[in-house]
């Protein structure tokens, strides 16, 4: 286990050290102490390492992640796991605004609640939230899956493309062109796998699926000004 004191050693040294890890590094286990809400912790990683952050983080933790597992033992500030490509980001507490935004791949697991704009413009990432999500989540989401074990805020899935949204609790309102869709066996199968990956004890049958009505970007006189 490699331990790194962020307060003593600084952010630049941390990210430089983590970036220097090659794909076959033997230093696969890292612990970051004293994060104290600092920004840009463990961004741009590209090696199969596990980074445990012992506390809460500020903006953009785990952004642009590839391969690595970033485990935050606290809450995360805005933009956690933004534009992730692969790997896993796991938040024990809550996540602030736009968690997992524009993510291309990998898995983001939030054990607490996520705030507004969770998964905005997601492009292939899987986001699994144990609690609730805020307003305008999955706005313009293009592909990937979002699982919400709690409730969703206003305008879920506004202007959605092909991402799949699964919500167990209530949805305050659906955004433009987002509709409830039937849960077919393949969706139950997919969701069961996602719930297992996210460490959720919920059952797939308790969820509703939401997706795009696919009418917003085709000719529809109701969309004309």
């Amino acid at each position, binding site marked *: 286990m490699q331990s790194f004191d962020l307060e003593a050693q600084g952010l630049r040294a941390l990210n430089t050290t983590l970036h220097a890890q090659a794909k076959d590094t033997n230093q696969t286990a890292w612990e970051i102490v004293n994060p*104290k*809400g*600092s920004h840009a912790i463990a961004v741009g990683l590209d090696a199969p390492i596990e980074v445990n952050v012992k506390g*809460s983080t*500020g*903006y953009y933790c785990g952004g642009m992640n590839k391969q690595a597992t970033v485990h935050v033992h606290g*809450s995360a*500030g*805005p933009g956690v796991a933004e534009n992730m490509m692969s790997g896993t980001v796991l938040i024990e507490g*809550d996540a*602030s*605004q736009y968690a997992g935004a524009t993510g291309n791949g990998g898995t983001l697991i939030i054990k607490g609640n996520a*705030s*507004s704009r969770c998964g905005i413009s997601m492009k292939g990432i899987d986001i699994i939230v144990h609690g609730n999500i*805020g*307003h305008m989540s999955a706005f313009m989401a293009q592909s990937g899956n979002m699982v919400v074990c709690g409730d969703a805020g*206003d305008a879920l899935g506004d202007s959605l493309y092909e991402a799949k949204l699964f919500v167990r609790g209530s949805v305050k309102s659906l955004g433009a062109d987002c509709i409830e869709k039937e849960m077919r066996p393949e969706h139950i199968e997919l969701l069961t796998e996602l719930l297992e990956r996210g460490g959720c004890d919920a059952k797939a049958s308790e969820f509703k699926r939401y997706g795009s009505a696919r009418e917003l970007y085709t000719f529809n006189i109701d969309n004309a000004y």
Partner: protein
Amino acid sequence: MCGIVGLFLKDPSLEPHLGSMLTEMLITMTDRGPDSAGIAIYGSETSGTGKLTVQSDTPQQDFASLEKDLAAKIGTNVSIRAKDTHAVLEMSNAQIPVARVALTDLRPNVRVMSHGETLEIYKEVGLPKNVAERFDLSSMSGTHGIGHTRMATESAVTTMGAHPFNTGVDQCLVHNGSLSNHNSLRRKLRRLGVHIETENDTEVGAAYLTWKMQTGSTLGEALQSSLDDLDGFFTFVVGTKDGFGVVRDPIACKPAVMAETDQYVAFGSEYRALVNLPGIDEARVWEPEPATVYFWSQNAAPTASEKAA
């Protein structure tokens, strides 16, 4: 961007440390707003006595015999406590309106920063660390306070454009965001007789709340109606003589984090601002909901009333 901090104490044993805790929080928020900084502190009260915090760019000249000159002009006792470019004038509460008029004659270059029974506001252009040092903010004690680091967007980088803004007795407000209808609202409020000094959007927000309260709203109601009447982005933190309130607009893209323990309620634009507060690891930490008014008072239980966005 801008950075906001706020601290409302429940435990009186922390009161001597209010200034130092707020100052540390304020300095942490420097990179959200290095243009200017300000702090409002609610300190002790002497019954019947009011405070005017004033500012001058030439303090040695303006403050030299101000105590005597003002006392002679308005015929009452005045005491003065000068700190760098600011001075706190204390006198009988009833004399304050007269003193404000007298000041404009006696010292035309002196500007009023705040008026209150317990409130004092210190604000200047410059890095938060330097502003805090100039006024020795860390030595101040009090029951609650708010602070702001400014990244200027809507008006010039001047002392008067710095936050907090005080527009009513013991009321003050700090703001992160930008209001888009401040010009029309300023014209409307001025027509209604509300005094607004600057072209700053935040002052309009503060004046709007004062006007609402002068026309019968409680602070909670005034904050609630701000959600209908103010356009743009805002996270507001407000202070009153005995309370501390927070509201975010329905879009809520300006950041906000709150923490509460048995000893205090704290606000920060970022969690970083809160990390050195006592017991923060065990505190309830949350992000205030959009279009929801939160308010704590020394005389009442906390409130959070939600309004449909």
